[in-house]
């Protein structure tokens, strides 16, 4: 058995009411907590892509994606391993900047991390950071020295490296479709 780690699933679904709750309920009823979730439409406005992060070992993720494959609104699923995918998350930090000195320090850190300053007020700065978890976490750790007043994450989105896509036909995809076959 492989180790339990953060795993990313990309799921294409019908862009319809109730589908997200169907997908998220599957995770809870199989005993998994969703660590991160991001949803948006794709090139086809009728199809949404859900990126979900959960903790689990490889076998568990396999079983989870098998269960997802059974849901009728689900078109296809791809497990995106960290080695073979690019992952990004947008995080907004509202950080206390009580003095001009503190503000400068924060701006310097932001520059190093290539984070954008998107709001400045007398007592605070708001930073927008796009990166993978480790980078965002590193920034967060530094900013915590100044006191993070509020923080919001979009959830990780991920794409496979190279020219492979979630649309590729695989044997497994065919097998799921067999189960759903309506003839």
């Amino acid at each position, binding site marked *: 058995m492989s180790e339990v780690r953060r795993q990313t699933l990309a799921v294409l679904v019908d862009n319809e009411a109730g589908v997200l*709750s*169907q997908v998220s309920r599957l995770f809870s009823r199989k005993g998994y907590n969703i660590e991160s979730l991001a949803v948006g439409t794709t090139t086809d406005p009728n199809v949404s892509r859900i990126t979900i992060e959960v903790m689990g070992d490889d076998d568990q993720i396999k079983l989870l994606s098998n269960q997802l494959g*059974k849901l*009728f609104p689900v078109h296809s699923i791809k497990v995106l391993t960290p080695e073979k995918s690019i992952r990004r998350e947008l995080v907004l930090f509202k950080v206390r900047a009580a003095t001009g000195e503190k503000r400068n320090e924060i701006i310097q850190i932001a520059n190093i991390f290539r984070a954008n300053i998107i709001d400045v007020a007398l007592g605070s700065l708001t930073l927008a950071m796009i990166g993978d978890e480790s980078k965002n976490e590193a920034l967060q750790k530094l900013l915590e020295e100044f006191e993070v007043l509020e923080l919001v994450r979009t959830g990780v989105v991920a794409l496979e490296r190279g020219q492979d896509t979630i649309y590729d036909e695989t044997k497994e995809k065919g097998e799921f479709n*067999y*189960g759903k076959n*309506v003839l």
Partner: protein
Amino acid sequence: MMMTGAKILMECLVEQGVDTIFGYPGGTILNVYDELYAYGDKVKHVLTSHEQGAAHAADGYARSTGKVGVCFATSGPGATNLVTGIATANMDSSPVVFISCNVGETLIGKDSFQEVDITGITMPITKCNYLVRDVNKLADVVREAFAIARSGRPGPVFIDILKNVTADKAEFEPLPRSEHFSNGSLKDLMQRSSQNFQPPKPDDKDIDTLIDMIKESKKPMLICGGGVVRGRAQDEFTAFAEKIDAPVAITLMGGGGIRGRNPLATGMVGMHGTKASNIACNECDLLIAVGCRFSDRVALDPKSFASQAKIVQIDIDRAEINKNVKTAHHIIGDAKRVLATLNERFEQQHHDEWKEYVFSYPRETQYDECEDSLTPKQILSAIAELCPQDTIVATDVGQHQMWAIQHFRFDYPGQLLTSGGFGTMGFGLGAAIGAKVGNPEKTVIHITGDGSFRMNCNELATEEHYDIPVITFIFNNKTLGMVRQWQTLIYDKHYSQTTLTHGPDFVKLAEAYGLRGQRVCTEEALRAAIKDALEYGHGYVIDCVIDTDEMVRPMVGGGSHITKFIV
């Protein structure tokens, strides 16, 4: 043609070939029942005493006929009363379309009278469910629902229709069933889930791998699961078993997937499996399970189960592979088709020595001998002897269920109706009623215990109302026998809340419902009662008094090694 939603619904049901509906009316579904009134010559409606009974009846109808069962209920409590029935159908992959109506659009979300979010409630226990808010989508939804219920791995589908939709009008074009896939939402679904309109073939490489495994195997073993029954693959499975020349263990849901009298059959496998089945699973070198998900009642301990063997799963549902037990190989596909393909590809095998070894273990259950009351063996032998061979058997859940399935030799898929996965006490009577309605030419019996029978015996009223001649056999031990058995064996004989000495007089109860009843304590009286019941031709209840401490043997404790028999 412009029609109301209610009429569109009825037209769609007729289009699907539905001639029987089980259900219960109420406020929100009144428009549909009003339309049903006009369809009286095409569609028969069976009014039950309780929605749960209707759900089980539709399920029993589906399991026994292989057709899609249909069940109606109103909003709120009507819909929630279906829930146990839906979950039962879901766990056992039974194709039933449940239809309820909800409050109108203006009342939705306002905690209106008899309003409930039934699509939310049934989401985890249906294959698919729908909330119809627009009459223009109704026909598409109904067509899709039936296609999904009966396709792939069958299962229940729920349609909730708003009351105003049943009154709203829309254009409706009748379409023969064969054209549903090339129209509307089903067309989209088809295009997405398959490249063409033909069901895909099982993968050639997967087939070849299995054939190599079969040829190498010295001690092969088969498990006949519920998939063989649902896929009506009994002929292909039997041919496959005979060709491999392997012993066949049968799961609870697999009863009838191969003839129980077939010399290769070793009986049930698992918690109450026969010694032959369980020991063979533990000593074989190749275990091929067809349509079986290795539930905890079959595999018991998933780690040690057949760990010496190469396990091969043949299943239509990709998600069942490696779910409970780790397998060495799998083939995805419909049992009938996969087995037919396999049968063409290999030569007759011979495993006489292995078979002889397996068959040296008992394939029958042992019972205690008991002097002052009937024994389960006496009752079941008398039933098997006196009732026609093709009698449909519906059971409830508990000791009587295990005894019946261990004892009877089922001949064909759909002959045994039992709640295997969900273990629903109270399933049997409704299921028996549904089966009799769907198979009027066959004898239908209902095997139950005093505990299970008390749960839904209100359906005796349905039996009387429509004169549905089901014969109920109550294995009356004045206790919740299976729970008591666990208490005896595992809980130091603390008989906590399992004694049922204050139950009703079942004979009087039957009579109160206008049926005939008899209490029997001897084999002679039992045989006379069975003969009387078969002759009588109406609902009949036979209350068979058995000993309180009678046990189901053999038994392996939950989660234990499959050969660790505790009795």
